């Protein structure tokens, strides 16, 4: 019974001294102070991709989008397809565990007792993930600090805390639980504001009670009650002030959408819409969105077939039916990401300077290069948007650089000039120059 209250506490609600701070999203933060905002949103989808339908045939700025990336065609000039990045972190765990657990951390997994489909039994990652590293960096500076710093979101993430279900880490042995319930996310983002509005709506009755009861009391007791009523009026005035200062559009959520395979497309969109709203309101500058989990077995009936995703991903390349379905699945992911990107592209920055997409980089990745081999070579990395200042409209093949260097590049793009990230031996050569960082 504390989950909800944790949110409430994060929203600054339950401390007696700060009722005036309720859900003042960016008030009190000098968020709009300096320079253009920079944002990073990482989309994780599991079980590898279908390389032949994912990687463009040519590199450079003249390339044709293969079927899986086609839904992002409208943003081809804002896109950077980065092939040739390997997650070579070895150590404990099976391919999937290392795939997801080392993906954003660039570090090995601890030895543990969670035995996967191969390799040794593993525990959690030994390091912090890059999203949290960047969020911490931004939160440390008043000029870039936001209400939440980062949002760790998911879609249909199973209720199991294990290496396959955790992407973001606050530090060694500190996996973060993604919020996959849009209603809980809504509460986190807007719950306090809603509560405040409801509170304001009942205060007339409270005052009527004060007035009615006061008449029955002795003069001395009435003084106590009057004094109390005055405190309530003070609170009411502060609510009015806050009301006028906060004018963010609060998204409307369809009610009663439960977690199920059938509802997954709805849930995915609800999460993405809430995230877009949160970015517009500058609640956070960094986010991860994790679709199900590594080894995720969502059955995507809405795509016209009922196969489990992970099971499909193990089928051999010669299984045309499976290949087709996997392409369909990954195209679906691309469509939803494109929809999100489009949302960013069509939302102006509150400062009036360009759109959200101009200052946001959306990174789409996966724990495996390919499902049926569990390879960590050519891990999918597609970046869309202008947030990190990379030179977009290109397809690259880096020929096999450790993914730690890509993670470092993300940090550097925020001005956070880490010398290594994750396992230091994989950081030789520093950031990836080919990204064309400004």
């Amino acid at each position: 019974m504390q989950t909800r209250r944790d949110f409430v506490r994060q929203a600054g609600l339950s401390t007696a001294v700060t009722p005036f701070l309720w859900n003042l999203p960016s008030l009190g933060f000098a968020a709009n102070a300096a320079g253009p905002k920079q944002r990073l949103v990482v989309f994780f989808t599991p079980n590898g991709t279908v390389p032949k339908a994912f990687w463009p045939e040519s590199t450079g700025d003249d390339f044709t989008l293969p079927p899986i990336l086609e839904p992002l065609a409208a943003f081809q000039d804002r896109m950077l397809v980065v092939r040739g990045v390997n997650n070579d972190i070895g150590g404990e765990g099976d391919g999937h565990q290392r795939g997801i657990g080392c993906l954003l951390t660039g570090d090995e997994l601890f030895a543990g007792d969670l035995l996967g489909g191969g390799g040794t039994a593993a525990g959690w990652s030994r390091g912090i993930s890059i999203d949290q590293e960047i969020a911490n960096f931004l939160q440390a500076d008043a000029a870039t600090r936001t209400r939440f710093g980062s949002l760790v979101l998911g879609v249909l993430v199973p209720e199991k805390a294990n290496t396959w279900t955790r992407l973001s880490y606050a530090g060694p042995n500190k996996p973060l639980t993604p919020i996959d319930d849009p209603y809980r996310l809504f509460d986190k983002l807007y719950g306090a504001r809603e509560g405040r509005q409801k509170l304001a709506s009942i205060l007339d009755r409270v005052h009527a009670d004060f007035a009615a009861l006061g008449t029955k009391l002795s003069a001395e007791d009435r003084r106590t009650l009057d004094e109390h009523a005055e405190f309530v009026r003070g609170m009411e005035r502060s609510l009015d002030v806050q009301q006028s200062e906060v004018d963010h559009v609060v998204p409307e959520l369809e009610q009663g959408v439960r977690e199920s395979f059938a509802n997954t497309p709805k849930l995915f969109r609800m999460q993405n819409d809430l995230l877009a709203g949160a970015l517009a309101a500058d609640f956070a500058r960094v986010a991860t969105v994790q679709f199900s989990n590594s080894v995720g077995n969502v059955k995507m009936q809405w795509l016209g077939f009922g196969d489990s995703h992970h099971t499909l991903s193990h089928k051999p390349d010669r299984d045309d039916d499976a290949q087709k379905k996997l392409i369909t699945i990954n195209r679906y992911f691309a469509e939803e990401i494109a929809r999100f990107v489009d949302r960013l592209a069509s939302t102006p920055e509150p400062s009036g300077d360009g759109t959200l997409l101009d200052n946001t980089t959306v990174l789409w990745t996966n724990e495996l290069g390919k499902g049926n081999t569990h390879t960590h070579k050519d891990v999918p990395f597609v970046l869309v948007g202008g947030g990190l200042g990379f030179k977009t409209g290109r397809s690259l093949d880096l020929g096999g650089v450790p993914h730690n260097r890509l993670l470092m590049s993300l940090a550097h793009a925020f001005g956070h000039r880490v010398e290594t990230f994750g396992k230091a031996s994989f950081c030789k050569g520093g950031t990836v120059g080919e990204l064309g960082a400004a």
Partner: protein
Amino acid sequence: MSTRLSGPCALTAVTLTFAAGTALAAGDERGRQIYAEECAYCHGDKGEGVEDVYNFPLEGDTTLATLTAYIDSSMPDGDPEYCVGEDAASVAKFIFKEFYTRPTAPETPPAVPLARLTVSQYRQSLADLLTPENAAVDWGDTRGLRVGYFDGVPRGSVSRQLTLDKKKLLVERTDARVDVDFGTETPAGMQIADEFGEFTIVWEGSLVAPETGTYDLRVETPNSFQLWVNDAAEPLIDAGVRSGDQTEYTASVEMLEGRAHPVRLQFFKRLRKKKVNGKPVLIEKTRPASIRLSWRPPHGEYRPVATHRLLPVSAPPVYVASTSFPPDDRSLGYPRGTFVSEAWDEATTSAAIAAAGFVEEHLDDLIGVAADGPAEKRVREMTAFATDFVRRAFGGTVDDATAAFVTDRVATDGPDGVTMAVLYALKSPRFLYPGIERTPELSANRLAAVLGDSLPDGRATKAAADGRLRKPEVIASEARRMLDDPRTRAKLHRFFASWLEVERDVALSKNEDLFPGFDAAVGHDLRTSLELFLDDVAWGPRPDFRRLIDGSTFYVNDRLAEIYGLDQTGDGFRPVRVDDTPSAGVITHPLVMARHAHERETSPIHRGVFLARRVMGHTLRPPQVDFELIDPELHPDMTMRERVELQTGEVNCMVCHEKINPLGFVLEHFDAVGRFRKADNGRPVDASVDYRTPDGVAVRLDGADDWAALAVESVSVRRTFARQLFEYFAARPPAAYGAATLDRLTERFTANDCDIRELLVEIAVTAAGDTEAERIAMAAAASDDGDPIAVAARP
């Protein structure tokens, strides 16, 4: 036993009183004149005091001789030479006779100011409103947690409470604590069939919080586990996956005093393996298996959760408001809700919003209809829930307009309407000031608030609403039923701590060189020891108050046994009788003795003031100057007693110290940590004193045994206890219910063999009724309405 309650000393007391009563008329007149001219300016015409000059009435239990000596040497203030000798004697006589020894019954009943919920009442009431089923659970008599051992471990890791295969159950029993260490072996006496020797243990039950606040829970294990506390859905700690070298896990949870919070701990001994050709193969041959659960209560250190805090029953979760409230006024020695501050109002707002959020989140469960259930039924159940919530918050009754408001809101706004109703109820003065309206359920509400700081259950509310809760014997039987509620026990614990001045936020710190081993852990053990004894008396078969101050039972564990020179047995807390040294029950309990002592030395003054005020019932004025205890190095050969006598020997001091010192000296056999000692500073302890009771009886006492023998016979001691118990539970003085209330309660207390529980019942019955002021106001209102019966009933 050397107590002498009669004989020459007692006779002296009578003579003195007699002499005062028949003072010569001429002397009287002289005294009156001096008083009017020299004293009344500061002390008022009738000794009632003068605001901001001398605030205290001239009354008390000091002897005429002391009073005379004091006036002679110290009065008038600033010019003590002005009134001496015969003058001093005659004005002392006048004061003594005219008002000093007058009965304290005031002419008008004390005003009882309007009171909001105390912090404790607020939290408990909110818990009752949101999770009423928590208080209804039967704790049973067994303590400890249920535990089941299962063969093998479940595959993978699932973050929910597992239903395990009964066929794999190896052993089922109740454990006194969660602290097992199997090394690399199989649990003793168990045949594990699992191919890797893996096993699962599940502990289940409830944690009982000794106080409200944040508890840090700690699990130490080299294995994997999941822990739930007060929330069956989300684990408090999810270490279903073991990782790296981590063997210690902590997390915080809010808990509510006297409540059972469901707990579940799933433990897995799982060995490390790797996959070889698709088959799991061990990569560690052995792995130790152990797990230990500790907690750190709000004012404590990490320690194993004591057995008496563990229930084998899994209670339904309880709502705990995590809002922090400003503390209640304690200026009269008991918490009262008579002061409303902005911070308090803000806290109620935060708490109301959090509660509304809870309702929003758990609405489907609270109304018993799912979000996608039949719409009509949903509206009906939401309306019913919201109306009932407001009704209970408002003391059992809602008027038509309020009911219509709630119905309307739910009809218009659906689930939002429910949260609006909750917010309204929790912000309304009709909730925050219980009893501000005279609802038919008033007596039930008062009973529950007095006994457990809570709201009444349905049964009591119904009895009151049906008009059955009027006769004292019916109220008494309802009070007796509520007495069994753990919240009443928790409140009694808090009272005892307040009475003995050993509240939880008081830290004991003792000199490490002089008292090696006396650390914070010992302090906590002492508290447990004291509470076990208090529980023994209060809730055992013979709840005789006299056992509290006369008993020689001391609960010890091995750590205490070592410090207090008792046998160590390797068991947990156990009662031992300490018959070979003097003892006076809880008064000489080491926690109480250590609390009323300095870091290195005893403090007869602290002990004396404590006994005089809290136990014997003397009136003491606060000292007019703060004193530093005389530095022991100035008088290296003196005992503590001698130094105190040296410092307080002046007649100015003796007004109070003639009461304080003997009560402190009589406990000099107990050192600064409450150990028995025979010598102080190399000389034999002298614990013999001449002492005059508040009833004016002079006695000679030698040591704690004598004091205890005197105290168990003393009406004043009983009266003093009854008064404090009343004030703490009812949050107002007994005189609010009539000048004779305390006398009546004290007489009944004596007649009932000093039964503490029966005294509580009498207090509850009294406080469930109206105060004198309320009766007068009602009679006045009725008289305005021309109601002749009510007018006739006017006292």
